[in-house]
């Protein structure tokens, strides 16, 4: 509990009153406060302070333009405070947005499906797939072999149903897919492979 000290003690501590005039009890309080101040005053200096300050003042002052450039190019913590209700609204909107967004690539209509063309041509420099869906144009639908293992593939969105196709190897060699389960005569003495594309929402 704090209580007011006699003014004589304060005056003695301030050097305005001779301590010899104090009673033993008053003198004990004065010495107690002296000792407290002495104990609190024992604080070691900050190591390296002079070097730190001199290091700063030796550097030339930044121009306002330089300070601005440093400010805009250095990271700053940004704190956004939101009421919980707004947090919930934002979360719901994000979920709704993600729900409606396609994961990647174009969206499929109910009557469409994804045709995956895969062929193994280890010596080929290029492979393309042709068929009525791209007017038999070799440049229209190239297959890719990103890991250079000789297996080429491409995915194409096509209307559901049967699709005739051929592979064109190195731009000149037309090859019917040896892995196709079905073939039809092309009317010129050769056979086209046939792929049955399933509608994406068939279930």
């Amino acid at each position, binding site marked *: 509990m704090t209580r007011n000290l006699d003014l004589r003690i304060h005056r003695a501590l301030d050097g305005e009153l001779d301590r010899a005039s104090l009673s033993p009890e008053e003198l004990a309080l004065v010495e107690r406060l002296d000792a407290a101040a*002495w104990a609190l005053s024992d604080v070691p200096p900050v190591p390296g302070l002079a070097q730190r300050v001199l290091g700063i003042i030796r550097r030339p002052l930044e121009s306002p333009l330089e300070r601005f450039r440093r400010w805009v190019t250095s990271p700053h913590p940004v704190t956004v405070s939101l009421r919980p209700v707004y947090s919930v609204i934002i979360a719901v909107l994000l979920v709704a947005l993600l729900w409606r967004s396609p994961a990647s690539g174009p969206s499929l209509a109910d009557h469409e499906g994804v045709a995956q063309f895969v062929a193994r041509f280890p010596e080929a420099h290029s492979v393309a797939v042709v068929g009525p869906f791209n007017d038999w144009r070799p440049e229209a639908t190239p297959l890719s072999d990103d890991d250079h293992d000789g297996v080429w593939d491409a995915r194409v969105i096509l209307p559901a149903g049967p699709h005739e196709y051929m592979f064109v190897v190195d731009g000149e060699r037309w090859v019917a897919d040896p892995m196709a389960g079905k073939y039809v005569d092309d009317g010129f003495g050769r056979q086209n492979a046939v792929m049955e594309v399933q509608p994406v929402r068939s279930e």
Partner: protein
Amino acid sequence: MTAGEGPSDAEVIARVLSGDVEAFGALITRYEGGLSRFATRMLGSRDAAADAVAEGLVRAYRHLASCRDPARFRTWLYRIVANRCKSHLARRPVGDVSLDDAPPMAAQELADAQFERTDQLERLERALAMLAPEKREAFVLKHLDGMSYEEMSVVTGERIPTLKMRVHRAREALLAALKESP
């Protein structure tokens, strides 16, 4: 004011203002002990005190030409560092004065003193930290830095009666803290 031997503050300041940046080091050496003690006790943290003193010294260097009375450089410098301490305190939650990294006492030096780094000292530190900043400032300037009330008035910008009252209240709070000790 000049602390000990060597050129006076005014002489050193004249050298700095004439372009001798390194001469400012003499002023740092002269006052870093007192400023570190003052800021540590004001902020209760050595790291925060180091920042406040360094900021204050850099600011003092940058504005050295505006020190109207170089002979009273010490109080001018303390005023700058005191303001840096207030800025640090203003950025903290109210009443938050850290004691986690209170400076260690030199045990051997204290062996003969009435206070050791014991419960009593910790009570003192806590009582000092619990004081309002303006009372803590007045007590530290008066009793730890040994300033006169006139010098304290220059540092704080407060009237002497106000400072005396703050020192009185701080003394009473610290004495009460000591009396609570077993």
